[in-house]
């Protein structure tokens, strides 16, 4: 049976990874608004994704405004691609 990546499979983390997969990079505020998670929840999931090497977090400033930039790493991109492939394979085998 196809194994699903446990780090990505958790719904909140899957939402974060799927959002970041569609952009070059985005900040914490955008992901917070789009995911509907709380600040604390988002921070803890981001820490897990950063620990797995899937997301890069850069704290910077734009002018005088603090900015936390999030980027899906190449490792994260390939893990997400692999996850989607595994998921469609799994769904295909269930349908058969």
């Amino acid at each position, binding site marked *: 049976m196809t194994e699903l990546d446990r780090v990505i499979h958790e*719904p909140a983390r899957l939402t974060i990874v799927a959002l970041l997969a*569609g952009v*070059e990079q985005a*900040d*914490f505020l*955008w992901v917070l*608004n789009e995911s509907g998670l709380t600040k604390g929840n988002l921070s803890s999931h981001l820490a897990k994704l950063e620990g797995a090497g899937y997301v890069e977090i850069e704290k910077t400033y734009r002018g005088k405004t603090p*900015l936390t*930039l999030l980027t899906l790493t190449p490792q994260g991109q390939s893990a997400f691609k692999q996850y989607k492939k595994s998921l469609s394979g799994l769904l295909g085998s269930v349908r058969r």
Partner: protein
Amino acid sequence: MQQPDLGDLARRPTRYWNVDGLPELMMGLLWIAWGGAWIVGQQVPHDWRWTAYWLLVPPALALGGFGANWATRRLKARVTFPRTGYVEWKAPGRGTRIGAAGIAIAAAVALAAMVLTGDARPAGTMATPIVAVILSLGFVVLSVRQHAPHYLALGGLVLALGLALGWTHGGWTSVNWMFLGLGVACALVGAVRLARFLSRHPRSVEPV
């Protein structure tokens, strides 16, 4: 938390582009400039002013497209990102760039062929409805891709404008009036959406 809809999440960045009404506002201003400049150009006396006008204005209008894109991004950095977050969009893929270049080259070749063969009059008569249909289809694609129903309304409006102005057989002048009308409508839609966006989203990140 339920398993998320991956297709919907993949479309969010594209939808985010028009969340604030700024692209519609800039697009509207660009079309007003386009239509207005060509209409004004027809009133310029046929002496050195005519030459100077048509030497300067078309390149300026062509550059206006790039300028509008640049201005939209700058405005988003000031207005949108401090309220609802910063996004750096992915650069268009190779296929998209080649497709856009192909359409531009095909349009330029068709226009040059019409001018060189002196057969521009029939095309001029049909120009307004043809351009209206192309723009309308563009709006439909935008509406579906970005989940933005207001683009459907703009598509319907440009189609109605194109058919009505095409009825007058005004040729290329009708196209310019259509651009002007569409530009005003787009700018109004953009301004209303921008006002709503600003009232719903106060600045959430304050400078330190």
